[in-house]
């Protein structure tokens, strides 16, 4: 019985992760501003915080990153590497800090977004698929980090309320 329950949880998690990658691709196509958001990153951070389990967060980060790489022209592994690291750090931070506070979430989401942009650019350069970073890239990272922070806060808050209501 416990096995079926855990399979259900894993299945639900897989659906959420696939949905986040696909939704990101579709919304970026329909609404240009959505190109600044990174739903898979928000998912990686969120599950890192909530699960507090580094191994699960690594698996989540790796798979979501590889899916992103496959649907984009990025070097296979660049987003995977970045999201893996972010998932692990988020899980470790979740065990050490109080991640239920809005200020912690703001800091974490903003820093993780910047870190993700930086890592993916560096790894893209290493794989010979990137271009030298310029001031507009930095501007885009900051904008993206701001959008991700705002969306992440809203989604985390929504999920908190939903969890409270169901428990």
């Amino acid at each position, binding site marked *: 019985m416990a096995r079926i329950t855990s399979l259900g949880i894993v299945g639900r998690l897989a659906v959420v992760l*696939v949905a986040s*990658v*696909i*939704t*990101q*691709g*579709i919304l*970026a*196509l*329909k609404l*240009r501003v959505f*190109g*600044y958001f*990174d*739903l*898979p990153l928000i998912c990686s951070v969120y599950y890192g915080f909530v699960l507090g389990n*580094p*191994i699960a967060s*690594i*698996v989540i*980060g*790796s798979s979501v*990153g*590889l*899916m*992103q*790489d*496959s*649907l*984009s*022209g*990025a*070097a*296979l*592994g*660049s*987003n*995977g*590497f970045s999201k*893996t*690291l972010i998932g*692990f750090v988020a*899980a*470790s931070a979740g065990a050490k800090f109080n991640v239920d506070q809005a200020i912690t979430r703001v800091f974490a989401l903003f820093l993780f977004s910047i870190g993700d*942009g930086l890592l*993916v*650019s560096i*790894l*893209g350069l*290493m*794989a*010979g*698929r*990137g*271009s030298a970073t310029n001031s*507009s*890239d930095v501007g*885009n990272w900051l904008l*993206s980090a701001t959008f991700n922070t705002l969306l992440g806060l809203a989604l985390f808050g929504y999920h908190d309320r939903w969890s409270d209501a169901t428990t």
Partner: protein
Amino acid sequence: MSRIIATSKRSGYIALAIALVIQTGLISIQASRRIDTSFVRAWILDSLAPMEKLVDRSFLGVAYVWDNYFVLIGLHKENDQLKAQLNDLRMKYDRQEEDLAEDQRLRGMLSMRDTITGRTVVARVVGRDPTRSNATVTIDKGLSHGVKPDSAVMTADGIVGRVIHSSNFFSIVQLIIDAQSAVGVMERSTRKQAILRGNGGHDLDLEYTDDDTDMKEGDVFVTSGLDRIYPKGLPVGAIGSVRPRKGAALFNTIVVRPSGDIGRLEEVICIVDPPETVDVFDPTRPTAP
């Protein structure tokens, strides 16, 4: 208890190391091109892109129902049969308008197809790059339709990019505005050759031209065919702005606006069997007896 925590911590670090080594290995294999990793991408693409296509179609369906029904529910309360009929007519009219717009787009594409010798395939754009690092889109045609890496992709207005990855039923198209993209072009009237490179924004930068002194806003560039990806003579874009060179710079800064509306791609044409328009010496090709 502290031993259990230490063990779980250690296994976390080991898992992290393994995951990072695998990802780094993937990146370095691609960088060195020692092993073909395209099957990994093709496999994931073939698994995810159908769902993306399904969601895209659902979006269109929902948008259609929303535009043509739900938005009008408020009016229906007061409406008699006549208004319902009017509503029905409006729905039909909207649908016909949409059909007409699509018809015009496809006619444009067909007329463009007629001008291109070689085999072409019309594909639908089903997704955009889920990261911001690359300007790419996903199309619903792949190897089974003849679309393969380096197939040129265009609209009725001009070229929009080239295929960089293909799975059986889907492909990833690198748009010409991507910072990694470069297109061999020539100015339509003077035939001066140059390279147009994506600047990561919405425009292209003109590079590697012999002489840019008489280039001005509005000058049109077409493909030169020398890059062996895009057939010769297809429209690429027109000069949007010319900034005079400063200091030690050799050339003016010339920004070219793509002729295709790259921000609103819906259907595209893939050139799957390009014509041999340019005779370029290729030492790897066997010579005719």
